[in-house]
Every structure is written in C-alpha cells, then in structure tokens.
C-alpha cells in the first residue's frame, strides 16, 4: 500500500494517467479494432521522442536557460551523413553507427565551447550552432535521398515479442539514464548544478566537466534518434527533425521535470511521449483538420500542465 501511495505522489504519474486516458478514448471510438496497431504505432513514434527527450531532460536539469535547440539539426545531420556513408551497404553499419556517435560528440563539444568560451547563453548558442549544423547537412546531402541498408530498415520497423525494436532500444537507454540520474554521482551533480551553479562549484562539483558531458550526451542521443528515424522512414529528409524542437521540450516538461532545473524525471518522459502521440492519433481518428488538431493539442498540453500544477501547489503549500 505504501508503494501505491508513493506512486501517486510521483510527478510523472499524471502523464501516464493522461496517456492511458487518451488511449482508452481512441480505442473506444474505433471499437477496439485498432488496439494492437495503435499501441505499436504509439510505442514506435514515442520511442524517438523519448530518446531525444532524455537528452533534453538532462540539459534542462542543468538549470535556467539551459536548453538544446540544436536537436533537430543534429538529427538531420547524423541521419544524412550516416546514410550517405553506409550507402545502403549492410557491411558498413558499424561505420554508420560510429559516424552517428561522432556527429553527436562533435556537436555537443561545439555547443559547450560556444557556451563556455564565448559565454553565450545556451539557448542562443545552440540556436546559432543549429543554423551551422543545418547548413552543413544541406551542403553534404545535396538533396539526394539515400535509402538505409536493408538490415537496418528491417530492424527499425520490426518488433520483438510484440514490442517495436525501437521501443526496446528506447527502454534500454531510459534504464541507463535512470541509473545515471538516481543512483549515479553524475545525476547528483547535474541536479546540484541546476539548483545553484555557484554553490555546486564551491561544494567541489566539477561544473564544466558535468556540463560538457551533458551537452555531449544530449547531442549523441539526438544523433542516434536521427539515425534510427532515417532508417525507420527509409531515408533522411532535411526537415525530419523539425517537429522534435518543441516535442523534446514538451515531453520533458509534461513528464514532470522541473523547467527551472535541479529536478529530473525519467519515467515521465515515457508517459509524456506516449501521451503526445496518442493525442494526435486520437484527433486523427476523429477526422479533425490540421488546424483543429494543433489547437486541441495545445489546449490539452496546457490543461495537463495546469492539472499537474495543482497537485504540486497542494504539496508545497505547507512549507
């Protein structure tokens, strides 16, 4: 019983409740005909936002002003470069993965260099670098769409034990992220920096090391998501990351991570990612137009945030 009580006090529970609610409504509307398909699609598409969301979560936890706006362009660049290098050749998959990771590491270090050396606020630094990354992708790609190696295309679209492979991957990454955050010294340090960077530094936290690691981690996860997404969708497109700019921030915040930094939350990313995808698919099944879909998505996001905030307000009113 105590466990259930503790569960209800968790900030991430609400994103799951919301996701489950939307799932039920959609299932009811289609009279259960699409249960399996809907669940699989939700897990597949949510997996991509989970992977980028986890990176964004660590960055946002670093404190006010920390957010990575270069996620979409990093996704595009990683997808383009990796697919072009592999050139549909199954034998070069390892090279593709290595290049993807290298893109992530380079972008992350580049971002932090701007933040640290030029003391540019992270939002602006990652925004500026995203322009450069995007241009690099355009220049490298030249508008040619290259198919992924067959093995990768099959892997990313297939399922194991009824769960899409990309969702398994997202799960594995999430578990690692959870351990880092809740049990590891890294998570403690990130949270300390997010609450008060100066106090953290004076308490001996290696602030620069932790921050650069976080920006690299975020960029690597974005690159990985871009790589998987381009394999999944049969090729890299220049605008394929665009929607993840807002989505990556939205899943972090709806999931219960503190926007002001210092407190992060891994399970919430899952709830929020599933929720966001399910809302869109629910509106699709009702045959809503694009305008209505956008409008309602926004209203629902705000409603969820307000509902969750009431809980927080009640919890903290005694202090």
């Amino acid at each position: 019983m105590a466990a259930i009580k503790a569960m209800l006090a968790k900030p991430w529970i609400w994103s799951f409740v919301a996701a489950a609610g939307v799932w039920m409504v959609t299932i009811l509307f289609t009279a259960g005909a699409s249960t399996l398909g809907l669940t699989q699609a939700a897990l597949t598409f949510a997996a991509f936002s989970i992977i980028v969301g986890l990176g964004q979560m660590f960055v946002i936890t670093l404190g006010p002003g920390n957010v990575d706006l270069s996620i979409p362009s990093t996704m595009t660049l990683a997808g383009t470069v990796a697919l072009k290098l592999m050139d549909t050749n199954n034998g070069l998959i390892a090279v593709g993965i290595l290049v993807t990771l290298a893109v992530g590491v380079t972008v992350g270090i580049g971002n932090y260099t701007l933040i640290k050396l030029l003391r540019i606020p992270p939002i602006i630094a990652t925004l500026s670098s995203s322009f450069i990354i995007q241009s690099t992708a355009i220049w490298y790609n030249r508008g040619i769409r290259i198919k992924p190696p067959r093995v990768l295309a099959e892997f990313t679209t297939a399922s194991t034990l009824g769960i899409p492979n990309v969702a398994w991957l997202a799960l594995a990454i999430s578990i690692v992220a959870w351990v880092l955050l809740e049990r590891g010294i890294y998570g403690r340090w990130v949270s300390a920096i997010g609450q008060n960077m100066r106090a953290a530094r004076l308490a001996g936290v290696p602030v620069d090391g932790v921050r650069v690691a976080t920006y690299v981690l975020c960029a690597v996860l974005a690159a990985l998501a871009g790589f998987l997404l381009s394999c999944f969708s049969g090729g890299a497109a220049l605008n394929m990351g665009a929607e993840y700019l807002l989505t990556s921030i939205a899943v972090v915040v709806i999931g219960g991570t503190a926007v002001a930094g210092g407190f992060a939350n891994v399970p919430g990313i899952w709830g929020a990612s599933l929720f966001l995808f399910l809302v869109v698919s629910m509106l699709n099944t009702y045959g809503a137009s694009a305008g209505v879909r956008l409008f309602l998505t926004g209203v629902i996001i705000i409603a969820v945030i307000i509902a969750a905030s009431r809980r927080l307000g009640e919890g903290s009113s005694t202090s």
Partner: protein
Amino acid sequence: MTWLTAERWRLLVPAVSLTVLLIAVFWLQPRTMSYTGLNLLFNLAVPIALATIAQMLIMMVNGLDLSMGTFVSFVACVTATFLQTDPLVGALILFGCIAIYGALGVVIYLRNLPAIVVTLGMSFVWGGLAVLLLPTPGGAAPEWIRWVMTSKPPFVPMAIVASVIIAAAAHWLVMRSSFGVVLRGVGGNERTVERAGWSVLRARATAYAMAGFFAVLSGMSLVGLTTSADANIALRYTLLSIAGVILGGGEFVGGRVSPIGAVIGALTLTLAASFLSFLRISPDWQIGAQGAILIIVLALRLVLTRREARVAH
C-alpha cells in the same frame, strides 16, 4: 567616466555591432547608402523589432515566450482577413488576444507554472487557429496599415523612424516610468516587491498584456509590408525575438533588459540577412552564416563586457 553606467555599457555592444555591419553592407553595396536603399534594408525590421520588444517584456518578468512566432502569424492572419473585411470584429479579436496574454500572465503566476511550457502549449493553439483562419496564403492588408507602413517621411525612411519611435516608447515605458521600475523589480526580486505592498499579480498581468500589445502591432505591421498573410508567415520570430533581446544586452532572468538594445538587436538581425545576400554566399550556407554572425556579435559582446567589468571596479 561616470556617465558610462552599466546600462550604457550594455548598449554599447549592440550599437557597435550594428554600425560595423552597416558599414560592411555599405561597402559591399554602396547603392544602399540612400533613402530607398536604407528603407529596403530595414523594412522588415519593424515587425521584428516589435516582436523583440514583446519578447523582452516577458523576459523582463523572468518568462520566455515560445509562442511569439505563431502568435504574430495568427495576428497577421486576423489582420489580413477580419480586420480588413470587418474592422470591428477584427479589432475585437485582437483586443481579445491582448486580454489572453494578460490572462496567461495571471495563470502562470497563480499556478506557479513555467512560462516556457505554457507558451509552448499556446504555440500549438495559435498555430492551429492561424491554420483554421487561413489554410492557404491569402487575405489582404487593410488600406490604412498599408499606408502607414509604406509612407515616406522626409529625409529618414519610415523603417528607421518607426524603429526610433518603438525604442523610445519602450524605453520610457520600461526604464523611465515609475511603473516600469516595479515591473523590472518583479523580475529582480519578486518577494521584495510583494513585501513593499505591490500586487505582483497585477504587475505580471500588465507585463504580459503589454507584450501581447506589442506582438499584435508586430503582426499588423508585418501584413502592412507583405500585403497578404499565411499561417506560417512569422514562425521565425520566436527565435529571432529571443536572439534580438540577447543581442541587445538583455538577460534571460533577473529583470535585466534594455529596450533600446532590443530594437538595435532586431535591426542587427535583419541587416545580417541582407549582408549575407550581398556577399553572394551559396544558398546552402545562408542559414549557417546567420548563425556565424550571431556568434561573432556575441563574441564581440564578451570582449566589451570584460572591459565593462574593469570599469565597474
């Protein structure tokens, strides 16, 4: 050097960046050194400057508006449709928008919500409404707006006159008026302002409503320049307005803002785009070069603020 206060140092960097960029443009394209040339260079700066001021007002009370671009787009759609066909309905909608901004300020404060998230949600709402209003590009600018935006005052082009007026009005409102002090105080130390007997709720609602007002002006002036609207017309404004505030010496938290700097920041960003097209950079690298300019200007600011620190001590 007592006149060189911290506030003035803050302005020096954006002013120098703008001047350097302007000289570079004149050098590359001497024909821009004329009435028409300047007007062309800075025409699109007016709506960006207004949106930047709007963003600055929200950042002043420690918020951040991620819906600025979609909101300006929505206003543009309303201006090109309702305001032109049924001016009364159009005006009511726009006043309603300002009221919604004020209400957002209230909700964000009362529920202690992060502004980023609420405005993130609002960006979907405004985007959706804009698509519903104008699914395909169209509409027309009301005559009077068109007239204002294309009028030709003597000696100095409209774009520059408008920028100066915007900067002066915002400066007076935020930096000089006695209520502006309270608004910045909310950004600096909310509890103190509250203890002194002010209503933080009202201050925040005012700041947001003022931001809504400037953003509405931005959308209207944009339609005056483009003559028609579409749902995605101003999506770039979210990031442009944030960058403009920062370029102008503002900061994300702590109520440290500079309206004059923000307008200069907006002008710099507009000029950067023209500068790149004059440089004949390959289209592949146009966006990237904009990013590079942003970085260079901020690096310049670093060099100069180091001097500021030395002057302060």
